[in-house]
């Protein structure tokens, strides 16, 4: 593969090649949070990653969103090695091409919904910067919060806060939306409504969506579901996901336990390469 020096435009394809992330421990040892992760996410694709707590999901999302860097392997954005990008360039690309939705919403406290949604546009340039308030209002109207423009997060319900967060993540029309447990702090119905909204918007904008979730019913909505276990990424087939979703109905099982289990045992420890591997792609 020929490596271009600079992406021609907004990020399209995301490609992880044998990515590893090792962190130092206080006792002098180290921990491999991610090991040999291979992943290709095509433009417009919806990918879900499931895994138990501490399995490395957030680290994977941080690396994809240019918030963290791998300690081994390569992360290629449209063929450009992210390691070659300067901090400033990474920040610019993060702002221009990625949107984030967090489990705890992470809205800026005491700012109105409009100010929250406009805040990413403070880091934009040109017209987008100067028209940020108008764009924020339009974005809020798209998520059905046109009547809550001046409400501060403290006065919004959980569902409304997450919708504000979705509006904020999409206000710069990113090419990739990274959602970390987007329904984790919401009840089932509200979570489903937020996911419907999120999927409608990303589909309309042609945005790539990478979702991390414990909720297999949320994961099942993706084109492709991957499982992260002990830092190793493996694909899940449709049957695996369906089975796991059905298992959720069994009494005495918590969502955390559900996700911690390997429903079908498929791919565990196999370290299946998703890059160029049809098994790893949505079918």
């Amino acid at each position, binding site marked *: 593969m020929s490596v271009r020096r600079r992406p021609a435009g907004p990020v399209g394809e995301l490609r992880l090649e044998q990515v590893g992330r090792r962190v130092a421990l206080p006792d002098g040892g180290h921990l491999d949070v991610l090991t040999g992760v291979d992943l290709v996410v095509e433009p417009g694709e919806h990918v879900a990653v499931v895994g138990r707590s501490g399995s490395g999901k*957030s*680290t994977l*999302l*941080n690396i994809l*969103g240019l*918030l*963290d860097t791998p300690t081994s392997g390569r992360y290629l954005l449209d063929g450009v090695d992210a390691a070659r990008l300067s*901090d*400033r360039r990474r*920040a*610019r*690309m*993060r*702002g*221009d091409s*990625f949107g*984030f939705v*967090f*489990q705890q919403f*992470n809205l*800026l*406290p*005491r*700012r109105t919904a409009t*100010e929250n949604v406009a*805040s*990413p546009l*403070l*880091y*934009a*340039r*040109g017209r987008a*910067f*100067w028209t940020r308030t108008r764009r924020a209002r339009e974005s809020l109207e798209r998520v059905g919060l046109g009547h809550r423009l001046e409400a501060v997060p403290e006065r919004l319900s959980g569902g409304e806060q997450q919708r504000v967060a979705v509006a904020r993540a999409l206000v710069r029309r990113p090419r990739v939306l990274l959602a*970390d*447990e987007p329904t984790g702090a919401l009840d089932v119905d509200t979570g489903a409504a937020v996911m419907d909204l999120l999927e409608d918007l990303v589909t309309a904008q042609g945005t790539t969506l990478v979702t*991390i979730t414990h909720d297999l019913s949320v994961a099942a909505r993706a084109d492709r579901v991957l499982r992260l276990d002990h830092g190793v990424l493996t694909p899940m087939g449709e049957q695996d996901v369906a089975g796991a979703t059905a298992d959720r109905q069994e009494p005495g099982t918590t969502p955390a336990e559900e996700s911690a289990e390997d429903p079908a045992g498929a791919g565990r420890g196999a370290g299946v390469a998703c890059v160029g591997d049809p098994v790893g792609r949505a079918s």
Partner: protein
Amino acid sequence: MTGLVGVLAEAWGEVRVHRVRVLLSLVGVFLAVLALTTVTALGAMGRQLVTEQSERFGGRPATVLVEAYPETGSLDRPAARAAFDEFVDRHEIRWSTAGGYGLQAPVRFPGGAQRVQLVPVDPAYGVIHRVVVSQGRWFGEDDAQRLAPPLVVNQAFVDALGGSSGLPPPTVVLGGTTPVTAVVVGVADDGWDVPSGFLLEESAERWMPDLLATSSISLELWVPPEDVDAVQQMAQSELGSAVPGASMSIYRSDSGDSMQVLDLVLAYGVRGAGLFALLLGGIGVLNVGLVTVRQRIREIGVRRSFGATSSRVFAAVLLESVVATTLAGLAAVVVSVAVVTNLPLGMLAGAGLSLTDVPAFPVRAAVEGLVAAVAVGALAGVVPAVMAVRARVVDAIRY
């Protein structure tokens, strides 16, 4: 452009959202800038007050006083006056007044005659000595032509005349060898309760030559301070032996450099104390900044996810502090201007003082206060800004 506006908008947003915290942290800075600018302004006013009081006695800077004393018997005043006039004309000195020490002139008040000190002057005396006329007017150039000698007297003189309604001008008989009715044209109060006043040198020469004969004559020259040495030397060489039988005394009579100490105190003492207070205020800002930046690490992480660069985060946190202290400085300057420009200066008259040329609010003090506030804001903002930049984004966000 958008970067600069963006970082300012971000900083302003933080200040606005956290206004209570910001206000509390800024009390010290506000008070320090207020004290710095107000004390400097009051100092300038006090200096002007002292200066004007001093100038009422010794003349404005630089005033050269030439005094001619009779060595024996009486002084040849016409010769001295002619020499003075020639000197003033030759050197084109604009402001000069010839006269002498007060004459003890008999004045016939309604309550009886009494000797009153009348100081012979030229009209320029009023300018050189900053005479403040509370009623009527000071002498004009054409007053020398009046047949009835004009007088400018103090309030005690007016009271001895039985009070003044202003119109028509009160008259009084000066009872010298040739009694004459004089007209009081103005009142310049000196705070004393003994009648006194000024009359023109020409009037004194015409109506009271016998009283003048044994007194000295003086010439006051208001010249640029840089010329004072040259004027003294010329006066010494040209007037020293110009009047036969008279000895000349020539010296600078204004307070001259005596204000230097006061200036130094104002320049360094007040400023130093103000800056020290400002630094203490800055420590308060720093403290609050350090505490709150820890609380805001998550928010900073979220902003990093929006694409904020390290330099942008640094600038935003730094500018929060700078914007806040600048606003505090501005508010302090506004309050200071309001206080200083609304001082009841009229109350000075009750203490026998007056301020003729009220100094304008010292713009320099205001600018210095503002610059110092900005600098303290920057100093107090650096450490929190460094902390904000050093925070690891992934830790800050904590998915």
